[in-house]
């Protein structure tokens, strides 16, 4: 037994040394792994170092004066409106579906732990794990070209996104009111409306607004696969190598996203 401070100090130091050895070993392994991956990915290092030499002239000649006259054409602006509408509709429908799913997928308040809980969890995980662009491509193939597929893709994206966040939030609520409601013999729906909803409403409202913001970002690109919105124009200009016009659209999209972010920030601050 270590009963004097010198021994204790030695034990402490050796423990730290072992911990440090593990840390450095892990770091070294990560580094070796990293450099192996460079050869696996066949990354041409010379191109990487030539990047800045090429990026400058390309930005200056092919991209720089962005064609804002094209980007403010009424056709493009109309598709921008379509993009915003898609994001709002997708966020709305998705939220309507996600609210009961989040209720079922929160372990502490779920009405049924054997069937509804795993079902809701599985739906949310599935909706989360398919990237929006891939989903849009699939839905365009299954249904039809246009904003219908886009809205559906955004709806599914919303279910995955808000469902998870809302369920996580609901798992942190105070169980007192819920149990009091249950003790009066109220059914699951009444428990939800009067015991759970008032508690989760502020946080869920924030999540819903934030989700709309995120969906708007996603919807600007869905047109790439023909699922409606401004992405289609971007795709067309890129395919025709009209980088000036494409840059005009990109600037339009960035302005829209910055605006939406500011708006969602403002709304969430007001909720607080």
């Amino acid at each position, binding site marked *: 037994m270590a009963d004097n401070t010198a021994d204790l100090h030695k034990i402490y130091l050796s423990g730290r040394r072992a911990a440090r050895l593990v840390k450095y070993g892990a770091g070294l392994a990560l580094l070796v792994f990293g450099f192996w*991956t460079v050869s696996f990915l066949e990354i041409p290092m010379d191109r990487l170092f030539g990047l800045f030499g090429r990026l400058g002239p390309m930005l200056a000649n*092919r991209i720089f004066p962005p064609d804002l006259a094209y980007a403010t054409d009424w056709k493009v602006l109309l598709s921008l409106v379509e993009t915003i509408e898609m994001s709002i509709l997708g966020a709305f429908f998705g939220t309507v579906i996600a609210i009961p799913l989040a209720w079922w997928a929160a372990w502490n308040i779920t009405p049924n732990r054997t069937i509804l809980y795993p079902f809701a969890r599985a739906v949310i995980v599935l909706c989360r794990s398919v990237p929006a662009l891939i989903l849009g491509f699939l839905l365009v*193939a299954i249904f039809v070209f246009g904003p219908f597929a886009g809205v559906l893709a955004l709806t599914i994206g919303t279910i995955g996104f808000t469902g998870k966040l809302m369920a996580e939030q609901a798992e942190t609520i105070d169980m007192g009111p819920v149990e009091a409601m249950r003790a009066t013999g109220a059914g699951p729906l009444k428990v939800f409306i009067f015991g759970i909803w008032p508690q989760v409403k502020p946080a869920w409202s924030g999540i819903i607004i934030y989700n709309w913001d995120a969906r708007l970002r996603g919807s600007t690109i869905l047109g790439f696969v023909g699922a409606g919105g401004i992405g289609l124009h971007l795709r067309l200009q890129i395919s025709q190598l009209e980088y000036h016009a494409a840059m005009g659209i990109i600037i339009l999209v960035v302005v829209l996203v910055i605006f939406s972010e500011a708006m969602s920030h403002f709304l969430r601050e007001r909720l607080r």
Partner: protein
Amino acid sequence: MMPAANPTLIQNPLRQPADLLRRYTIYAVIVAVILAMSVHLLVYGTDWSRMGSPSEIAETAISLLPNLNFIPKIVSPLLDTALMAFWGTLLAVVMSVPVSYLAAATTTPSMIFTFPIGRGLIVLSRSTHEIIFALIFVATLGLGPLPGILALACRSVGFMSKTTAEAMENVDRGPIEAIAATGAGPTARFLFGVVPQVFPMFLGNAIFAFDANVRRAAILGMVGAGGIGLHFSEQMKSYNYGNAGACVLAVVILVVVGEIVSNRIRTKLISG
């Protein structure tokens, strides 16, 4: 407050007629807006004559069921995707150190010149879709995983820098003052006063960014930036829906595994 007709009756102030009217007006406006948008986008914006009959839709959906024989061919691009996410995150982590240094009000050298630069970079990175970055880098660097890595790095550096800058602004001033009292210079104050407080959160966010980057990397191939997205869009465009379904299955598995792994690591980091 309106005087209650019956003094013994306690009235809910939120149930005053004026408040009820206001609330229901808001509901009515929301419903009207949603309805108008649905009519515009989903009824008039969609080409319903091209939408197949239910049996045709079901047929397409069934033909999308994964063709498992294709799985061995996409293991390598799937690994590419994961490695792209890894490198993109690593680059973003490295890039976020100077950017967050510029964008944190407490550390930035000049509030007039460098602070807006840092904030502007963060906003630009966060509001531009990864596909747009990928398009620019593919145009300058050619096809392959390298432009994908750079696109992911540019996309996630904003998130990393924003969270880090906010953490650096909110650090406890006590340790820094204690270190300053020993006569330490600004470098030592930063290294031993700020970094230890920020580091665990920084690491957690890096893992979160990796998780998000796995999702993003899966679609970058659709514009030629390497990974599984290229195979997916090729198979979709050549109407090999079974093979495309296999790609989607692979992406779903990758994303779910990535999420589970990153959740594990993060909870371990938080618990110590």
